[in-house]
């Protein structure tokens, strides 16, 4: 058959969002690819220049619809770096727990979407069901179902509600049981193994050169987790270790990326449970909103010439905010906000990864990199 270009997207089951992957195929074999991004560019960076530091949180929530909480926290740490705020320790523990619960929800969304990518719909229903538990927990904290707007500069919006700790422990333990079922459905299925093993090799050194981070990089054996390498928040106080896959000499395949995320869900659940246990003041107490235990006073204006930046381990990789303060002329607003999106950097690399594989491998490979277009186009 002659070679032809197939346009997958912007509306296509493979894309997981609004983007186009142009694929040149020779029969069933992929010869060339070309990603086409930018369909939902909203100009978040520019919008942020006209908002004060608390209002920006809301926009950062909307950067990624699957992992809203991590993105707003990613911004908050940069803003605190800029405004030089000391965050109370209890607030840090609450944040850590909220971030890790959101990471579980995000990975569940990924696993749920990855099942239909290679033809199994039950996984989707199962994963969304468990994700619902996590979203219930986050809803109790933030008051909203998807975009929580939970962190504040200097702390968190609210303390844990009554009985939250008990429910969170129960749900997380239940979830730890449920992970074994996903493994039974995936790892013990030969069909899944032949579909994911040996497909979509990504060499670790190439990933480092391209700037790929997060679980995709750790699947290649590179032990680089920002929570671990540059501990922020209270990650260094807890007993944990980032999951890193021992990949083959050819690099990380789809199976490695799957394994790393499943292990990361375990680690996140354990982190959240530890945070509940070690929380100063105990997880069962409740402080009013604005209490100094959970929210420190923060200046509303940043002096001119000051900058704040923070590396943050998002569910999909290293997200980074760079904020430049504007001084008196800008009022309470920043001069410039710049966002580093991990998936914006990963998608071109992932598109190159699938050259040489079959058409049926396109969703398997692309899905294994966990694309999220909200943060990519921002």
């Amino acid at each position, binding site marked *: 058959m002659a070679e032809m270009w197939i346009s997958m997207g912007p509306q296509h089951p493979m894309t997981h969002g609004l983007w186009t992957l142009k694929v040149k195929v020779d029969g069933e074999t992929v010869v060339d690819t070309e990603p086409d991004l930018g369909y939902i560019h909203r100009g978040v960076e520019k919008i942020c220049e006209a908002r004060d530091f608390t209002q920006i949180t809301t926009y950062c929530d909307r950067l990624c619809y699957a992992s809203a909480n991590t993105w707003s926290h990613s911004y908050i740490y940069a803003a605190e770096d800029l405004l030089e705020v000391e965050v109370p320790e209890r607030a840090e523990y609450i944040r850590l727990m909220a971030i890790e619960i959101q990471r579980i929800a995000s990975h569940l969304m990924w696993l749920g979407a990855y099942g239909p990518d290679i033809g*199994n719909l*039950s996984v989707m229903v199962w994963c969304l069901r468990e994700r619902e538990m996590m979203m219930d927990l986050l809803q109790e904290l933030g008051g909203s179902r998807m975009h929580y707007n939970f962190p504040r500069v200097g702390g968190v919006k609210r303390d844990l509600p009554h009985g939250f700790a008990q*429910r969170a422990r129960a749900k997380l333990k239940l979830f730890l049981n449920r992970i074994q079922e996903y493994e039974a459905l995936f790892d013990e299925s030969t069909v899944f193994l032949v579909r994911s093993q040996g497909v979509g090799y990504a060499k670790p050194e190439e990933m480092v050169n391209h700037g790929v981070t997060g679980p995709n990089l750790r699947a290649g054996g590179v032990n680089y987790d920002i929570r671990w390498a540059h*501990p922020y928040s209270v990650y260094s106080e807890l007993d944990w*270790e980032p999951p890193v896959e021992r990949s083959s000499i050819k690099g990380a395949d789809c199976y490695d990326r799957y394994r790393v995320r499943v292990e990361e869900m375990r680690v996140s659940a354990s982190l959240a449970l530890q945070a509940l246990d070690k929380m100063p003041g105990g997880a069962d107490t409740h402080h009013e909103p604005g209490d100094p235990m959970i929210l420190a006073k923060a200046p509303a204006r940043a002096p001119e010439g000051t900058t704040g930046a923070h590396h943050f381990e998002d569910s999909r990789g290293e997200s980074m905010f760079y904020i430049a303060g504007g001084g008196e002329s800008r009022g309470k607003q920043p001069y410039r906000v710049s966002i580093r999106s991990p998936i914006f950097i990963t998608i071109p690399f992932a598109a190159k990864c699938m050259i040489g594989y079959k058409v*049926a491998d396109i969703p398997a490979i692309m899905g294994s990199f966990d694309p999220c277009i909200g943060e990519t186009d921002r």
Partner: protein
Amino acid sequence: MIHMASGDWLNIVGWSESLTSWSMDNVHDILPSNDIDMQVTIPSTWAWPEPITMGPIFNLQQGFASIQPALESFMHATIMCTVVFTVMMLTMLAIPYIERKFIGRLMDRLGATTTMRSLWVGESGVTAGEWWKQLPFGMGIPIGWVVNLLNSYWGNSHELETVSRVNNRSYHGYWFLLPGFFQAFADFMKFATKEHIVPKNADKVVFETAPVIILATTIMVFAFVPFGPHIYAANPELSLLFMMAIFGVAPLGVFFAGWASNNKYTLIGGMRSAAQLTAYEIPLLITVLGVAVLSGSFNIIEIVDFQMGQNEGNVWNIFLLPLGAALFLITMIAEVERIPFDMPEAEAELVEGWWTEYGGIRWGLMFAAEYMRSYAACILFALFFLGGWEAPFQHTLAGLPIVGGTFETVFTVVPGLVWVLIKAWLLFAVFVWIRASLHRVRTDQILEFGWRYLLPLSVVNLVVATILRLEVWTGEPWDLWVPVALTLAALVLFVILAIDEDEEALEVQRRPYSTQAVVKASPGSHRD
């Protein structure tokens, strides 16, 4: 000893034959019995001196008698086609119902687990507990009363009801209305009222022909599928070959549809269908050949008779050819293009594959054809391997000392059609189960699977069937050790092959595939 094949009271073929011959005889009788003189005489002219006499005297009754057999068989065939089509369509409504309900159960698994409400009941010993006890000053006590009261009345003790309500399932209805059953009708109405769109650049003739090919050949399969010993539209000597030949035509229609739509997705889908055809069709035919060899017939009804043991063997073929049954199941799933072999319509990469461009009633009919093929596959499995219209362990149960008489009555009263349908529906549930738990393989993988594993195994199955037929079978009922030994051997092999886990890996780690760090890092070790 009951012989249901001959003793089944639901003898529709017999009724139809007697009805047509009776009505034809009546027609014969009301025709005038006297000779009709149709002689015409042309008087003589200058050209022919003698008058010419044309035409004989004929008798209407005699004339009718000469075409009566042809008319009778035509009417009989018409009646039986109508009956079989009706039975097929009515019973096939259960197929989408099973698909919908069973996959819903599989996906929900335990049901209510999504909300806090379900956590009051808990799962695996984990519950959220009585959170209201933590409210200060005993404020939570009334809440606890209310919650306990609600739980005792409408809590998950009434498991089914609550589970359904929590999952927003319309299960809490009257069970005898079969909630969700009539969804198939609603779907059909929707398809029937939709616009028919033909792509601008499509090859219009082929585009319109392909659904006809697919649907017509699918329905024709049922002409040779007996629903019971006396319910079939046609019963030629070589019905097995005829049916398998027609079963293989539909992938050609799929290829036509994919090519004619002039769309890249459909083209790849059609190509995949053609490639897949080469992988499963040959093992399927060789497997069926094994069944034919063992039964000594190419006729489906005789194959079932062989398993029922009127005066031959009386063991279902699944106990004699377990390998053949497994091969038939796998190749049939590939033939009807269900998960894990549904690459032609892989929705993840090809949107909907070869039927992307079809809509409205054409899409609906092709979808119905898809389910009809699944249904035909299930019925064929029941006929070839599960004894067709024989009740399970019929002879054993009827021979029991005290209750045997009751069983015998039941087997006499229940027509064979019921057993065929029950077996086919249960088998379709297996199809759904497979769909819910497996992923989709790749085209090159099914080709490899077909040629490297299915084809040699089907030949092995054929050899086993030949040996059984030529060397073991004597015309008497089978000795008990033959089916027992074969089934046990197959089960042992299955268990051995199913445990393919790496034991060394199990010893080292908890699970065979465990994630480990290459280099154990310590916090902050990457800090420059």
